[in-house]
Structure formats: structure tokens, C-alpha cells
């Protein structure tokens, strides 16, 4: 690993308490580091965007130790302590960096008064839309108005009228009256999405957010502007008026769209997912995610889900199905088509099944173009997991022609397919009829129709598990909603089959019990590692064994293949 450059710390005094913060930290972040619920309220400042300093909400009082102008000597008070020269007016916290000896007051009368004043001005032209506004409940203006506002309005003139219900793009709706002109969305489009389409027109209180003429907010990151909008000006057209946010339960998850493995939060109520938003992880996705990744939950609701364990079209229990699958696999001549979409746990038991039934394992690649930000070339979340588990030792091919040849020559009698539509990957439907198929999958398709044994699978939103992303970071996801009734988590069924193949009793039932085997069986994992002990921000694994493989990822937001190789090529400690 590269040794991080040594961080310089400076000591500043916040509300009478000395705090060490890294050099270059601004006051908002410094106050956040103090903890204890202390916060400098802010609208326009965002940790991942440039500083605009236009909302004026983060005003604090600032003072520096006094020095005599002529001599440069420290000016002392009667107790012999250096005097603090407080600035006569408040300063904004976002654009003030911590300097040695700096004194900050975040709660003085002057600060309170300026926050109150700023809030009053922001509310002058803000409509009273809270009952119909989607942001209500997570609105910074609502929160800070309650906390720092006056509680009533002194404004008796007419409010400004601006366009409402404007379509900015296919996924974003804009209500200009609610906009407080923080310019976060403009800066995001320019700096992160690199698609500069938003801007303010007109002046003063008539300033209006709009798209440049002839352009639309159409890029694949447009919904991030909705996330960072501190008020309800930018709203998601898809989530619009669907549910108030205070009813929704948040579950930490991982985006399955590509090998980036963006950290996400699933918002659900009573078993129904309403939206997906990004979760901050500075090593993976900062605070962003793609629009396409937010729509993946809709696959859960489509009608063709497999919901029953079946043997030759007859509904059976999961135990009967697993036993029948094991019996079939024991007959030999097995080929397994595993999936880079499966979790680490499922791949581990796929590997166990492959070892015990002496099967050949193939994987199919799912490659696409990168956008250079959070959508990598590899459109599967867990290819690295298959490598770490030892399921495969080479990168996968684009199709299954090798398996097709084996079937044709009669070398394969039984095919275990995990969530792949194999008829589109080189194995024709006629060829598929020559073998007995065990299909583990989410949706009904051509393969499941003809399969001897069908095992319904759970989507990533319905099960616990973990993925390994492009930079060999092990990240876990939790079940947000229950799956179809009676359907077990995929790894449990695979575990049952593997258990029956070896005639040994594996203690099962929970994912942590499974991890006792996984941690022991996979050399990359520490023996004491459990699913529950994977940190929220993920766990970096040692990638040195796989550095020579020609991974398709080139460069995106937090990953650069050349730099990654270089950083890990030097042996540890060098």
C-alpha cells in the first residue's frame, strides 16, 4: 500500500474547546468533528462540491490571537493570556479554513441573529407548500426554519411568482418557487456529471434556475441533483407524490449495476421499495450514484418472478428440491454456469458444489461501455468474488460456446444454471433439451420452462450477502424487504445441495454460520471474519494474487487500473 502523506493538524478553539483538525478543514467540517450534536447549519456547502458561499446560513463568529501591529509581539490580557481579536462581523464557515489559534463561536447572540435573519430572507419568497412537497421531512429549510427561524412571517407583500412543475429532464421535475438559489445542482452538473446544463437566469429575487436553451438535464446522474437539493425544488419525477419520507425504512445496500459497487440506501415501506439513494462512501462512490442504478428495484415487482420450488413442473418443498438436485448432480457429467451477479456466499457454495460433483464451472461476462464516473465496463457486481472464491481463475468469456460443444459431444448430462439466460449466450434451446437443467433464477424464462428442477432465487433487495467490487473491497448488503413467501435465501439452498453431495452435516440457518466456513475456506478472508463484522464502509482485500488478470475496468471516479496495479504491485512494507 502507498503510505499516506502525513496529515498536518492545527488546533482551533470552538466554543471554548480546543480541537485538533487536519489542516485545510473548513469550519463546518471542523465543528462536525467536535460531535456532541454540534452543527453549523448550511445549504449551499456540500463536502464533495466546490465552495460557493452564497446561502450565508453558515455564519459563525471568528477571532484570531492578537498581535501588536508594530512589533509583532503577542498582546496579552491582565492574566497573561493572549487576547483574541474577534472580528466585528460574522464570517461564513464553509469558506473559512481552520488556522492555528483560530477561535470560533457557533452559538453566540450575533450568530443566532444572523441565522435568524438569513432564514427570514430565505422564507420571504418560499411558498408554503410543505403539505404537498415531497421534500417535507428531509428538507433542510424546514428543519432550520424550525430551529433558527422566527416562527411567523412579517412579510405582508406579495410573494414572487416563478414557474412550477417544470420538466428539467425525463427524471427531474423543478419547482422554481421553492428554490433557495444554493447552486448545488449547478455545481454538481458542472463538476461531477461534467454535463453543464443548469444555470440561473434573471437577477435578485427573480433569479430562476433553468436549463440552458435547447438542453435538458438528461445525463445518467441527474437524480443526484434531487438528492443534494436542500429544499423541494428539484424532485424525482418517479418518486413524486409516491410516499412521504418519514414512513420509509432505510436499509444499507450495494448497487448491482456495475463492478463499482456504489453504496446505496433502500427506502421501503411494508415490503415495497419506493426509491434508492446513494450512501456516502468516500472510497467508492462519494455521495453519488447513477440514475440507472436507482431503477433496478423495479425488477422485483414484475410479474414473472419464480415463486415456487418445482421438480418437473410440480411444486415441492425447498428440502425436497435440494435433495433431488443433489441426486442429479451425483450422477456426474455436470457443468455449472455460475454468475458474477451472485453474492460471495452463493459463489462459495457454488464452488463447493462444483468440487463435490467434479463439475466444470463457466462464467459469462457482462461487459458494457464505461461513463468514466460510476458505471464501469464490467456490469456485474461480483466478478471479483468469483475469483476470490476460486470459482474461476480466469476472466469469463462472452458466451458459452465451450459448454455448448461439451453438451453436443455428450460430455455433459446435467447443467446447473445460476441466473443466466443461457439460450441467448450460445446454448440453443434444442441443445438445452439434451441435458437435464437445474435452474436457479429470479424470473421465469426459456431456461426455467424446460428445466427439470427450478429453484426460485431472491433479488439483492430481499437477502443478506456481500459483493467484492472493482478495487477488491468486500461490501455487504442487507435485506430491505421480504421475498416471495417460502423462498429461502439462495445461499441456503446451495448450502443444502452442497451438504447433501458430501454427506456431511453443515450447521446452517444463518449467514454468520455460513461465514464460519467461508472465512476458513477462502484464503483472502481472515478466519475470524463474519458477515456481521464487515464494516459499513467495506473491507479492502489483498488483490496481489489477481493483479495480472486483464480486468476490463480502465478508469472511473475512484478507480484507475494502472494506478491500482502500481499501488498494489510493491510488496507490503516496501
Amino acid at each position, binding site marked *: 500500500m502507498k503510505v499516506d502523506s502525513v496529515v498536518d493538524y492545527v488546533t482551533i478553539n470552538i466554543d471554548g474547546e480546543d480541537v485538533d483538525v487536519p489542516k485545510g478543514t473548513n469550519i463546518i467540517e471542523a465543528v462536525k468533528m467536535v460531535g456532541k450534536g454540534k452543527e453549523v447549519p448550511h445549504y449551499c456547502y456540500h463536502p464533495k462540491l466546490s465552495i460557493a458561499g452564497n446561502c450565508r446560513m453558515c455564519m459563525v463568529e471568528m477571532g484570531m490571537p492578537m498581535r501588536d501591529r508594530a512589533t509583532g509581539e503577542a498582546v496579552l490580557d491582565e492574566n497573561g493570556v493572549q487576547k483574541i481579536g474577534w472580528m466585528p462581523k460574522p464570517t461564513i464557515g464553509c469558506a473559512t479554513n481552520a488556522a492555528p489559534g483560530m477561535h470560533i463561536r457557533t452559538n453566540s447572540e450575533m450568530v443566532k441573529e444572523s441565522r435568524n435573519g438569513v432564514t427570514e430572507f430565505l422564507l420571504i419568497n418560499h*411558498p408554503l407548500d*410543505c*403539505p*404537498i412537497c415531497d421534500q*417535507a421531512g428531509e428538507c433542510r429549510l424546514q428543519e432550520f426554519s424550525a430551529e433558527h427561524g422566527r416562527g411567523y412571517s412579517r412579510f405582508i407583500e*406579495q*410573494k*414572487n*411568482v416563478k414557474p*412550477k*412543475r417544470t420538466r428539467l429532464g425525463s427524471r427531474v421535475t423543478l419547482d422554481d418557487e421553492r428554490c433557495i438559489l444554493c447552486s448545488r445542482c449547478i455545481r454538481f452538473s458542472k463538476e461531477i456529471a461534467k454535463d453543464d446544463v443548469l444555470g440561473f437566469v*434573471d437577477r435578485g429575487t*427573480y433569479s*430562476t434556475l433553468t436549463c440552458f436553451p435547447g438542453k435538458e438535464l438528461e445525463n445518467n446522474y441527474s437524480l443526484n441533483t434531487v438528492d443534494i437539493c436542500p429544499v423541494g425544488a428539484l424532485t424525482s419525477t418517479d418518486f*413524486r*407524490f*409516491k*410516499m*412521504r419520507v*418519514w*414512513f420509509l425504512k432505510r436499509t444499507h445496500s450495494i448497487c448491482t449495476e456495475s463492478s463499482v459497487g456504489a453504496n446505496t440506501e433502500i427506502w421501503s415501506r411494508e415490503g415495497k421499495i419506493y426509491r434508492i439513494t446513494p450512501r456516502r462512501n468516500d472510497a467508492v462512490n462519494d455521495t453519488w450514484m447513477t440514475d440507472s442504478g436507482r431503477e433496478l428495484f423495479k425488477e422485483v415487482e414484475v410479474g414473472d418472478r419464480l415463486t415456487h420450488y418445482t421438480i418437473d413442473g410440480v411444486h415441492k418443498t425447498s428440502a425436497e428440491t435440494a435433495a433431488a438436485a443433489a441426486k442429479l448432480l451425483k450422477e456426474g457429467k455436470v457443468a455449472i454456469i455460475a454468475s458474477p451477479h451472485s453474492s460471495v456466499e452463493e459463489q462459495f457454495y457454488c464452488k463447493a458444489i462444483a468440487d463435490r460433483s467434479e463439475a466444470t464451472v463457466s462464467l459469462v461476462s457482462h461487459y458494457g461501455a464505461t461513463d468514466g464516473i460510476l458505471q464501469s465496463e464490467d456490469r456485474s457486481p461480483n466478478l471479483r468474488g468469483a475469483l476470490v472464491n476460486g470459482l474461476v481463475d480466469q476472466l469469463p468469456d462472452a458466451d458459452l460456446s465451450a459448454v455448448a460443444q461439451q453438451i453436443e459431444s455428450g460430455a455433459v448430462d446435467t447443467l446447473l444454471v445460476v441466473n443466466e439466460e443461457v439460450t441467448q449466450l450460445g446454448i440453443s434451446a434444442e441443445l438445452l433439451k439434451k441435458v437435464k437443467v437445474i435452474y436457479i433464477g429470479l424470473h421465469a424464462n426459456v431456461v426455467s420452462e424446460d428445466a427439470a428442477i427450478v429453484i426460485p432465487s431472491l433479488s439483492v433487495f430481499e437477502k443478506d450477502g456481500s459483493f467484492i467490487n472493482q478495487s477488491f473491497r468486500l461490501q455487504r448488503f442487507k435485506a430491505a424487504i421480504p421475498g416471495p413467501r417460502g423462498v429461502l435465501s439462495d445461499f441456503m439452498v446451495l448450502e443444502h445441495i452442497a451438504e447433501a453431495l458430501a454427506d456431511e452435516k453443515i450447521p446452517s440457518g444463518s449467514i454468520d454460520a455460513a461465514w464460519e466456513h467461508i472465512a476458513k475456506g477462502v484464503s483472502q478472508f481472515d478466519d475470524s471474519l463474519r458477515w456481521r463484522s464487515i464494516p459499513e464502509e467495506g473491507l479492502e482485500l489483498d488483490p496481489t494474487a489477481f493483479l495480472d488478470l486483464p480486468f476490463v475496468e480502465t478508469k472511473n471516479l475512484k478507480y484507475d487500473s494502472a494506478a491500482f496495479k502500481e499501488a498494489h504491485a510493491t510488496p507490503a512494507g516496501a
Partner: protein
Amino acid sequence: MAKTKVIERKPLTFAEKTFIPQILTGLKTTGKTMFQKNITLQYPDERPSIPDNYRGVPTLVKDPNGREKCVSCQLCEFVCPPKAIRITPGEIDAEAEPDRAHVEKAPKEFDINMLRCIYCGLCQEVCPEEAIFLQDVFSLSGYSRDEMVNNKQKLYELGGTLPDKHYKWDKKKAAEEHGNAH
């Protein structure tokens, strides 16, 4: 422990022993009420008059122009202690109702389960649009559990129209038309 105070019982007087004064007092009351107006109501043919602040069955009301007031903010659903209210929010179709397009939001479905409702009136108290009121209906019955769930249509039937002090959304529309447009 509290101290027990023993009170001596006075012996009955001669008049009390005859019971005649007591009987006469009783007969006096009977005689008086016999010629008064009847107090007992022949329920259910006759109904009592219900005071304005009575907390009966929760209902949805329309404004005097017959327009829906609820904007499905779901605050009543949130505040409801026994979780009797269930709302599915929806969007107002701007083409079907152009005069209400600026309200944007209205409930698609609105169910109140009267088997759960405890008539606490918190929904009325919390409503920012003054759209839900506990009115004078106090007796309701049904043959099945489903019948006891009041849907949106039933709630508006029960609620009827109430006078509106504010006409909030009309004011908003007027401001939109005559406000400080640039």
C-alpha cells in the same frame, strides 16, 4: 394508616319511623315530572342534537365550491395512534381538472378503518388543510369487517361540505396570476 373516625348514628325520629315524609317527597317529584315535557328520546326514531365540537366518525369534507380539500400529506396517517388511516397519495390530473392543477396532489385512496379508530381527533387537529373533521355521526354498524372500512367515497359522503375560512388554494392561484411575476 388513616385514622378511623367513628360517627354515632342518631336514632330515627318518630316522623322518620313512619316513612310518610319521604314518600310524600318522592310523590312530589313524580307529580312534577308527570306534567313536564318528555326527556327520554325514542332512539333511533328520535335523535339527540349533537354539539359542534362533538367527536364522531372522522370524515373528509369538501369546500363550499365542492372541491376536494385533502392533499394527501399523510400527516393524519402518521399521527393516528391506532393506525386506522391508510392513504395512497396521487397526483391531480392537470388536464381533467385545470382549475385545481396548482394543488398538484390529492389522495388516490383514503381508507379509515372504523374498527381501529378511537375517535381521538388527532387527525382533525393535525390536518394542515382542514380537510378531515370528526363530525356528528356516532353510530355505525356493518355486517362484515370490510364494511367497517370507510373508503374515500364514503368519507366524502359522510363529510359533506363545511364552510371554509381561508380558501388557501384560491388565494394561491390568485397570487400565481397576479403576483410579482418578472
